[in-house]
């Protein structure tokens, strides 16, 4: 099947459907030989096949259909009338066409199917000669194809009634899949059309089966009966496979949706006076049909938006040095258990400053909030309700669905949407959609005696801390809990607090589910982790949707209901913009960081002395054991991640005496390029935003200046000088001090 290209494939599917219709028409025609409608319909069908076969250079197919068409034309125009003989030859012609199509399907070429007999017979009738006795050669071949002849055919004993059962083709793709297994079936046989309701019912039943399986597996685990265990494992496997199979039946290529878009784009382009070419990549990407249905409107809206607002007029494009014709690209692909659909245009792009101005004007964000946001975050504001960038509402977009509705719709099906844009280069909207809605893998956790499910999609990892470690590792920054996850600060959210319930964990253990939502990471503190299982998502009633913390409910193995946490909503609810641990937090480009307000890490030294280190210099926070500190010559070093780090003890650097007892060394890892240094302090006190200038009048050895943090004077560490004291070769580049200073800020 690989060697047949798509056009031929489509031609085959279409022709098979047409032929089935043709058979019915021909038989009906015999009953009402005068029916112009039937003759016209038959003529059109044959004419279509003839046209396409000529185009695809299937000569024999063309010759058969050509004579058939001639005969039909005469019948249609009343120059000849139907007789059993003409019906016979016409049916014979249909059979010949079928044979040819079968040959084409198998080999990609017409093969050596002989059609001359049929052509001769038709020609004979056309010439007014008596037909040859009916001896059909092709009949046998055809017989195998057809299940049963539900309509009787009176004459033509040798011709099997080629009346199709209501069997037709769904999409060409599944067919191709079957063919790849080497087991060749005809296009018509290998796919059937099934009522969508039936599939939905099956899916629901499989959902119930999965639930019951979960119950059985759990109970079998409790009983410890070996045989039962074995059967339950078998049940487990079968249910999983069945679930996968049924889910596949509901998958449809995204092309089913996309195929309508070229027309939309063409009409829209003509309407707006824009030249648009639409390219589509990844048409074959498959998606659950309910999801396909759900993304239809948002996707159409994005495409309309792209043409209407995204692309510029031809004149503007030419003036900007771009080709007059704009390109709209649709791309779909699978990524990490999700389907990603992108709608990109190469238009003018979205100016984040304009978006910001608009957001302030509309009162959606304050100027201060905007100042805290990165340009990417600002762009996402176009999805906020009440925001519309179009200066004028045109009759194309700006009607009905706004971008906020697009976002709501996509999030409603557990997806996400983000926008990227480069001014002058274009805009990309990226939708991430789960493969299916009905059954999702999830982690079940316990909080305050209740169980909750967290979809695995949002889960990055689990961290469990015993009481001792938790006491050290979970720190409090100005009222907000953080955990140092491999040295990076992770904001913590206590589920019990969010839900307003009383945690029943009193032994000091801390269990953290590290979650990701909207590109931000945070740790959700829960009481216990129970298990991972596939859960069937059940919708919640309308009262519960308003709460916004739950995306649905599910029934667990023991029959009890558990709520599914909506991680996205949770993130939005509990994390304010500046507490977010951005994914790019260890971005070493400190220039970008310096442009925003300066963040300082405040560390405590001996004698109550506090020193601030610009956070942009800090890559990680670590704890080392004192014994890990080794000596090279008179310098202290530690081994860290396969490298050797020089240790700067700020206490001795400043001539202070450490108040810290115990064997642990709290260090701040600072990295430039591929070199790092460990700055040892007594404790990490706080992280503060400091947008004032340094009060640099009072300076001292190793101090860059001083600043006010919560009304206390804190010295700002001259990182460079401190490092040089430990490792004079740290900065290999012999650039100016000032430039380097800039770098460390």
């Amino acid at each position, binding site marked *: 099947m690989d060697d047949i290209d798509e056009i031929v494939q489509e031609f085959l599917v279409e022709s098979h459907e047409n032929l089935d219709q043709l058979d019915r028409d021909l038989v009906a025609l015999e009953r009402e030989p005068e029916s112009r409608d039937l003759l016209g319909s038959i003529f059109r069908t044959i004419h279509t096949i003839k046209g396409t076969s000529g185009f695809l250079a299937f000569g024999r197919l063309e010759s058969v259909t050509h004579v058939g068409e001639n005969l039909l034309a005469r019948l249609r125009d009343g120059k000849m009338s139907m007789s059993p003989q003409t019906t016979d030859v016409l049916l014979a012609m249909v059979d010949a066409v079928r044979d040819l199509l079968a040959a084409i399907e198998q080999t990609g070429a017409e093969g050596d199917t002989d059609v001359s007999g049929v052509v001769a017979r038709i020609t004979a009738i056309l010439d007014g000669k008596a037909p040859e006795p009916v001896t059909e050669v092709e009949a046998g071949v055809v017989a195998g194809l057809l299940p049963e002849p539900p309509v009787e055919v009176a004459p033509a004993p040798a011709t099997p009634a080629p009346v199709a059962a209501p069997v037709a083709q769904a999409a060409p793709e599944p067919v191709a899949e079957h063919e790849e297994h080497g087991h060749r079936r005809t296009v018509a046989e290998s796919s059937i059309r099934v009522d969508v309701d039936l599939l939905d019912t099956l899916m629901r039943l499989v959902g119930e089966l999965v*639930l019951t399986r979960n119950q059985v597996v759990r109970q079998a685990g409790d009983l410890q009966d070996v045989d039962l265990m074995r059967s339950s494992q078998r049940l487990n496997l079968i249910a999983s496979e069945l679930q996968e199979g049924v889910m596949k039946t509901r998958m449809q290529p995204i092309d089913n949706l996309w195929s309508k878009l070229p027309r939309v784009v063409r009409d829209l382009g003509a309407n707006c006076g824009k030249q648009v070419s639409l390219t589509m990549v990844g048409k074959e990407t498959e998606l659950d049909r309910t999801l396909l249905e759900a993304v239809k409107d948002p996707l159409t809206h994005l495409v309309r938006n792209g043409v209407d607002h995204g692309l510029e007029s031809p004149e503007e494009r030419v003036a900007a040095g771009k080709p007059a014709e704009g390109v709209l690209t649709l791309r779909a692909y699978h990524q990490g258990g999700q389907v990603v659909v992108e709608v990109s245009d190469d238009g003018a792009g979205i100016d984040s400053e304009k978006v910001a101005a608009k957001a302030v004007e509309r009162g959606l964000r304050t100027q201060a909030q905007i100042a805290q946001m990165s340009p990417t975050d600002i762009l996402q504001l176009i999805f906020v309700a009440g925001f519309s960038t179009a200066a004028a509402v045109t009759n194309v977009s700006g009607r009905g669905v706004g971008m906020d509705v697009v976002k709501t719709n996509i999030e409603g099906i557990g997806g996400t949407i983000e926008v990227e844009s480069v001014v002058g280069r274009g805009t990309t909207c990226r939708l991430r959609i789960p493969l299916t809605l009905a059954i999702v893998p999830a982690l079940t956790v316990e909080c305050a005696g209740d169980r909750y499910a967290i979809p695995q999609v949002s889960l990055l990892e689990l961290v469990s801390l015993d009481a001792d470690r938790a006491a050290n590792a979970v720190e409090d920054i100005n009222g907000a809990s953080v955990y140092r996850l491999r040295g990076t600060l992770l904001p913590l959210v206590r589920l019990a607090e969010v*839900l307003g*319930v009383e945690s029943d964990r009193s032994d000091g253990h801390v269990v953290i589910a590290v979650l990701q939502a909207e590109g931000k990471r945070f740790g959700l503190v829960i009481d216990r982790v129970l298990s991972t299982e596939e859960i069937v998502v059940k919708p919640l*009633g309308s009262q519960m949707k308003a709460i916004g913390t739950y995306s649905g*409910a599910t029934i667990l193995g023991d029959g009890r209901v*558990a*709520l599914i946490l909506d991680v996205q909503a949770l993130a939005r609810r509990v994390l304010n913009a500046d507490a977010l641990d951005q994914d790019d937090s260890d971005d070493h480009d400190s220039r970008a960081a310096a442009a925003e307000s300066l963040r300082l890490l405040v560390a405590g030294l001996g004698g109550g002395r506090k020193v601030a280190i610009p956070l942009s210099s800090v890559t990680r926070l670590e704890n080392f054991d004192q014994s890990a500190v080794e000596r090279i010559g008179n310098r202290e070093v530690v081994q860290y991640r396969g490298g050797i780090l020089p240790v700067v003890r700020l206490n001795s650097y400043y001539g202070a005496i450490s108040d810290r007892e115990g064997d642990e060394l709290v260090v701040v890892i600072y990295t430039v390029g591929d070199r790092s240094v460990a700055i040892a302090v007594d404790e990490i006190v706080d992280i503060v935003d400091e947008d004032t200038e340094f009060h640099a009048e009072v300076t001292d050895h190793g101090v860059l200046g001083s600043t006010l943090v919560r009304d206390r004077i804190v010295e700002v560490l001259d990182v460079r000088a401190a490092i040089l004291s430990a490792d004079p070769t740290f900065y290999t580049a012999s650039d100016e001090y000032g430039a380097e200073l800039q770098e460390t800020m």
Partner: protein
Amino acid sequence: MSTRLVTFTLDGRLFGVEVNAVQEVLRGQPQTRIPLAPESVSGLINLRGQVLSAVELRARLGLPDRDADQEPMLVVVRVAGETIALLVDSIGAVMDVDDDQFELPPDTLSGPSREFLHGAYKLDSQLLLALDVDRAVAA
């Protein structure tokens, strides 16, 4: 014209909902509480694989809480395409009531009980309060 109502009691009062709206009546089921939910939504119930919200009618109608030892009964109703379980004290008979027994709630009645009632049917022994289910379960 007569109407057929499924009756139930709440805090000693007799209420009724139209029989067509009622899917079934069952005994108390284990509930999963929903933190942050409105007070009147007391939890979620697994009804043969379907997840239903349970609405505590006492809370909804501003009546005092049920005694802790009293097990609630469930009246499962279909409202606007959604299936919801109403928590009530006990289930009464299915009654046919005449429209001429009906009267709008008295003007002195105010608060949630007026809002959620169609009115009252004057039975011989007591009043049967007709619950407006649509409103009573609306968020």
